């Protein structure tokens, strides 16, 4: 067990090194640092100001170790990222780590309720649809899921802001206030949109798992021995279906931290999603590569966690 965890961790480190290498190629080797400087300083600046900015942000050093072993950007990039020293933003020189810590709270206050509601609504609905499989209820359920999946999330957001916030005036169109007494008013609409936009895909995914599990031989045996349909669903199908569901769920937990790009930006929630969108809009490369790195780190972590949970839940899986 310990040997497995160690090997899994080691491979995770290898993957993170690979991601950092890719980021280096994209953001240092391919991108011209003069462009980054101009994005930050403006188009019309004298060359010596650009040189000074580049020296200040470390973009003037040689790229590769074979050019200068002691002082090159490749090693500096790796060591800074691995020490979680993300430096300053290219755009306004504030510290990226401060912005990350500030943004995590608002992001989590949006993504955690969204995630929990998605599970609480999605799984029972999928169970109902799968219980009535190959009837009109099932057909209707699948049809609704496909319809909901075919609408662009942009339309959901714009439609909800127009209909619920502007016409009906139930909630503010956008904004955020961490004060617990009013936070719900600001979060209700993005959460509603997120649940509606996600439920089609989720319900269909869970339904597929339930239906697949329900067509196994042991379920047929249970039915043959005279077990009732509700009991089969509860005691046989659901218990075994937990395994793939758990995989999916554990894998998505790390991404709660990185927030939601679209929902945060449209509804003015100052989380990590908004931070990323601002970085994209402002060509802020240092923030963007930090977000990519953190996302990859969380994904690798989530995968390791998933494998471990798998072994804990499913007695057939042995970690060796």
């Amino acid at each position, binding site marked *: 067990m310990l040997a497995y965890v160690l090997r899994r961790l080691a491979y995770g480190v290898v993957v993170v090194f690979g*991601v950092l290498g*890719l980021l280096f190629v*994209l953001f240092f080797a391919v991108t011209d640092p003069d462009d980054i400087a101009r994005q930050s300083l403006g188009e019309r600046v004298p060359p010596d100001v650009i040189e000074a900015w580049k020296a200040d942000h470390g973009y003037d050093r040689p790229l590769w170790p074979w050019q200068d072993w002691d002082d090159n950007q490749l090693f500096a990039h790796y060591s800074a990222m691995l020490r979680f020293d993300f430096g300053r933003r290219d755009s306004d020189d504030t510290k990226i780590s401060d912005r990350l810590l500030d943004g995590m709270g608002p992001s989590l206050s949006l993504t955690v309720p969204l995630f929990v509601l998605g599970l609480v609504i999605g799984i029972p609905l999928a169970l109902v649809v799968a219980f009535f499989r190959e009837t009109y209820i099932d057909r209707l359920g699948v049809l609704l899921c496909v319809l909901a999946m075919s609408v662009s999330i942009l339309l959901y957001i714009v439609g909800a802001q127009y209909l619920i916030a502007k016409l009906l005036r139930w909630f503010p169109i956008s904004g955020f206030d961490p004060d617990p007494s009013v936070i719900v008013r600001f979060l209700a609409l993005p959460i509603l949109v997120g649940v509606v936009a996600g439920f089609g895909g989720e319900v269909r995914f869970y339904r597929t798992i339930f239906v697949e599990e329900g067509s196994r031989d042991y379920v047929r045996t249970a039915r043959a021995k005279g077990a009732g349909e509700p009991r089969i669903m509860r005691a046989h199908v659901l218990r075994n279906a937990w395994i793939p569901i758990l995989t999916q769920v554990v894998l998505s937990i790390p991404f709660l931290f990185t927030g939601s790009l679209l929902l945060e930006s449209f509804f003015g929630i100052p989380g990590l999603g908004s931070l990323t969108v601002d970085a994209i809009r402002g060509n802020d*490369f240092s923030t963007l590569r930090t977000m990519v790195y953190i996302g990859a780190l969380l*994904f690798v972590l989530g995968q390791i966690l998933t494998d471990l949970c798998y072994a804990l839940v499913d007695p057939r899986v042995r970690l060796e």
Partner: protein
Amino acid sequence: MPDWWFSNAVVVGLLASCGALAVYVRRNRLWSEAAAGLWRRRPLAILVVVFYASVALADSIFWIGGVDAGDDVVKQHEALSLVDRAFLGTSEASYSAPFADVEFYGGAPLQQQGLHPFGTDILGRDVLYLVLKGARVALLIGGVTSAIAIPLALLFGVAAGYFGGRIDDGVFFLISTLSAIPGLLLLIALIMVLGQSTLSVCLALAVTSWVGFCRVARGETLKLRELEFVQAARALGVSEPQIILRHILPNLAHLIVITYVLLFSGLVLSEAVLSWLGIGIQGSWGQMIVQASDEISREPVVWWNIGAAGAALFGLILAVNFVGDAVRDVLDPRTLREEA
């Protein structure tokens, strides 16, 4: 060689390959039965997809001249597509509501009274025209991206599965590295670095979407290479490229078709999100929706712009999703067995 000439050559090539494909499907029992099954399941969705495809095709056939563009010198010397020609001279000065006789703001009489079924946008362009032009962009996104992503996935996946060893380790490392990066962020990073053009957006979409199919192709090849008919071919002394071409790839064909259709709707929807970030493709429905989303805060509200673009996008995605499910039902041996 001018641009429009190239586009026409592509159209001819596409039509020829569609014809060749139709003949092949007709001759091959497996594929013709699958096609018949597909048609039986979802005739309406297939017709809708064919409609979108023919609009896109009509918008890809260009030539210069032969139009009554009046004194518009640019129009006289510009290559115009069939769709452009059909909507020549339908521009107004400003917004007009669907089927209106007068301008939306101000009430000046329109040049084309009651002839704009979806109204016009802020510059007075006919919305129906813009929506029809969007079909070509959407199909371009799905088509070009898949044309890059699927061969890439096949190359790496089949090589990894068939040869194993070091190659497999390398490909597996590449896959796990790429899939560790959140898709949308990698996409944005790639476009920011590659610059912003139709091809670079498609390239970036391809880089982020080939990984899933590569994994499937690798697993399937791994399974196929141990089967009796491949071993028999090897025992007979068939060369390895021959084995891959004649015995492995044909057995991956159904997966290619399934992946292609399922990939398509995701790609078009991702482009809408990219448009909102300001890095989409010029003239796509996503861009129309993003531009029009400001217009619904006008008073009185301008709703037809976003409505038309959204409906066009929704229609295509819905039809492709239905076709995709049917394709999987028809071609995936696992679901076939469940039915039997």
